[in-house]
């Protein structure tokens, strides 16, 4: 019997168990008051047959894959034959046990609800499993990478030149520079525009303008990043090249730091503006009234009262936007280019915003697509890059939460 078949049997037993449970309680003495309705007797039988057997099934699948992948640890012979029968037996035993306990006094509702709670807890834990999965998968492969490539050269190397024939130079600094540079430009675009838009919409705009402009700006947030990427590739890139880079003699490339940064800035505008909007609206009206009553103009009130009061929230929003920018992939894949910053060719090439430059996310994509050899450091480096990215964004998110919690004024 195969594992899949045993699982199908478990499902069948559960469904049949449900109806048997209902039948059995219906057959009991009707004159005695029943504690639970028939449906709970059925449900309890089904879940008692289903939950433990499925848990065993899933656990065995996990162990089996681990054994398959690791060298030192193998399962004893015959497990693949034996376990399906155990799963089946467990399911049957559960069904029979539950059926045997059915009587008018039996608290089937409480028993069934305990099983449901188990399922709910399992669902809630999936978030934990996901995080553990992310961290574990990246840590393991990063460990493999560092056993083949020195971590010092990875973190402090100034050249990125992967070569699948060997002898690669895999320094993260050029990629980190590209990532931070593009994110910086994106923030320089998004923060003032997003902030001013939020201020205008929450403090100045009448209900009519607000009703039109706010959803329009929020549409920007719902557009997939691949659309922004294409926009960068076919419109913004060539435009910047023809009107700025070439006349100024700064470069010939359509994909550049500026292209990716500008487009990413546009993507982040709604992010900054809607977060700031919420925060500005949370500043109590009494503070504005106080300032206006003392003779300040509206803009003075905003600059000197509202924004300072909302500052922790705004800083939090900016940090979240920065984390978004650092982790953004498609815009930089299509807009920023594939060549890493060349630290060795001087400062000019590295700070020129019209030069093509690449980022951590772009390199994760390029090292992991196509034919990949999971033993080569050139592939494994992607996991080290991913882990670095994960740590960076996690740090920014935690920092953002911390800033918001610590410095938030409580107006109650």
């Amino acid at each position, binding site marked *: 019997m195969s594992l899949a078949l045993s699982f199908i049997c478990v499902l069948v037993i559960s469904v049949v168990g449900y109806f048997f449970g209902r039948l059995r309680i219906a057959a009991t003495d009707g004159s005695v008051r029943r504690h639970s309705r028939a449906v709970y007797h059925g449900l309890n039988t089904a879940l008692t047959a289903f939950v433990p057997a499925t848990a065993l099934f899933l656990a065995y699948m996990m162990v089996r*894959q681990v054994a398959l992948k690791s060298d030192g640890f193998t399962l004893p012979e015959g497990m693949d034959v034996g376990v399906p029968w155990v799963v089946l037996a467990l399911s049957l035993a559960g069904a029979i046990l539950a059926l045997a306990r059915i009587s008018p006094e039996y608290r089937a*509702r*409480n028993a069934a609800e305990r099983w449901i*709670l188990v399922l*709910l807890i399992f*669902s*809630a834990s*999936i*978030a*934990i499993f*996901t*995080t553990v999965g*992310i961290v574990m*998968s*990246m840590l393991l492969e990063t460990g493999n990478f560092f056993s083949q490539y020195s971590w010092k050269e990875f973190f402090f190397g100034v050249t990125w030149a992967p070569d699948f024939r060997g002898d690669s130079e895999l320094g993260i600094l050029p990629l980190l520079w590209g990532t931070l540079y593009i994110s910086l430009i994106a923030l320089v675009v998004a923060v003032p*525009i*997003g902030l*001013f*838009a939020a201020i*205008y*919409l929450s403090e*100045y705009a009448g209900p009519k*303008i607000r009703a039109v*402009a706010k959803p*329009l*700006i929020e549409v*920007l947030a*719902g*557009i*997939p*990043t*691949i*659309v*922004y*990427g*294409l*926009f960068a*590739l*076919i*419109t913004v890139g060539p435009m910047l090249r023809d009107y700025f880079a070439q006349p100024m003699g700064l470069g010939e490339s359509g994909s550049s730091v500026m292209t990716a940064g500008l487009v990413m800035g*546009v993507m982040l*505008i709604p992010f900054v503006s809607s977060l700031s909007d919420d925060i500005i609206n949370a500043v109590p009206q009494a503070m504005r009234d106080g300032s206006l009553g003392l003779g300040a*103009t509206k803009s*003075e009130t*905003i600059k000197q009262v509202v924004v300072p009061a909302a500052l922790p929230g705004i800083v939090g929003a900016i940090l979240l936007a920065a*984390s978004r920018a*650092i*982790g*953004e*992939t498609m815009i930089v894949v299509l807009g920023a280019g594939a060549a890493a910053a060349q630290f060795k060719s001087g400062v000019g090439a590295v700070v020129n915003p019209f030069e093509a430059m690449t980022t951590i*996310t772009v390199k*994760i*994509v390029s090292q*992991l*697509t196509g034919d990949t050899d*999971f033993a080569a450091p050139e592939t494994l480096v992607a*996991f080290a890059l*991913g882990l670095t990215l994960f740590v960076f*964004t996690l740090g920014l*998110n935690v920092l953002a939460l911390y800033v918001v919690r610590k410095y938030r004024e409580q107006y109650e």
Partner: protein
Amino acid sequence: MTDANMSKSGAVPVPRKSLLQPDARTKRRNSAEARFRAYGLAAVGIGVLALVMLLVSIVGTGSGAFKQTYLTIPVHLNEAKLDKKGDRELANLKKVTTIGYAGVLKTSLNDFLAQEGIEIDGLSDKDAGKIISKEAAATVRNAVLADPDLIGTTQDFTLLANGRIDGYYKGRVTMDSAELDGNVTPEQLMLADALKERGLLKTKFNWAFLIAPDASDQRPEAAGLGVAILGSIYMMLTVLILAPVIGVAASIYLEEFAPKNRWTDIIEVNISNLAAVPSIVFGILGLAIFINFAGMRASAPIVGGLVLTLMTLPTIIIATRAALKAVPPSIRDAGLGLGASKMQSVMHHVLPLAAPGILTGTIIGLAQALGETAPLLLIGMVAFVREYPAAWSPESGLFGEPSTALPVQVFNWTQRADPAFVERASGAIIVLLIFLVAMNAVAVMLRRRFERRW
């Protein structure tokens, strides 16, 4: 000098402050106010302008993908070329490749041109044949294999014109650019014009773009979204089945049952962090766990669906918890007071009342998943797939056959050399945006219709 001095001398007029006549400082402050307001308006304007530019640029380049130039000519299916033995045996017919059919098409076209009296100076027979797409030979071949009796007859076929000819009618190729282009000559364009005058060359709505599978680098005119749309549908079905169930169950536990302890704290912090993890990290997770560890097949929609499920879970959980929170405690208390168990009051009363909010959150999560590209690149959905994936097959299981997805197809096309693919990519984005707008419209409608405020 004081005010008293001034009034005594009488020479200098007293600077009186008036509410009607603003002094310099007030003027300055007022203009600062106006400027500040203008900055705000400008910021909103820039945001809206960016949206408009984005849409205009995409729709402008992409709308061409929905029209395609077709050529209708009589093709003489020459028996000597297509069935040398003359026995109509399918195995033998299959031996004739598309190259053989391309030859037949070329001859037929040139014979037809001679018969119609269309002559273009300096156009060789070979070049004339090139105005037909390379895909056309496959079209004719499939028609012949489906019905071998066609051999030897002359049939009217409506065939794809070459991508450059198509580009000529969409303004991408001009007589001047054709001079410089190695793939098309001005004479070929003149021939196309001559055929168009006779009504044999037509630009029609391009159904094939929505249905046909992808095509290779040399034949952009034949590339379609069929496989990508199918793959996206499979993935969305996976997400639709898994994400709401798990997400709602998790939210019910966290919102209604979870005790306040360290474990639930960890789960909560985890979920808010997962919501902000870059999507590409989920791709790495999918590659490491589902493909490398669990041994699932790369490029399979089921893997994509699972990755996107994990990615949308935080969105759905956050929306669901907000919806559950919005249901007033009186509902729960009333249920409990009437003797329902906690589970009953939640499942029978709180959950149905929170359903509209949950549904809206789910649809928004789905829309997000539909447009997501980066994680799918890592799990191998960029592969060139021409076969329509089956929903189920004995070898690869449910949603297990290789496929691509809409946003990945866009990326794929941007990586091709021929500029005609840019038009296709933008067209694919229009399709994607139509799906997204429809989903969001449903979400907004649901919210308007069913949202309740207590």
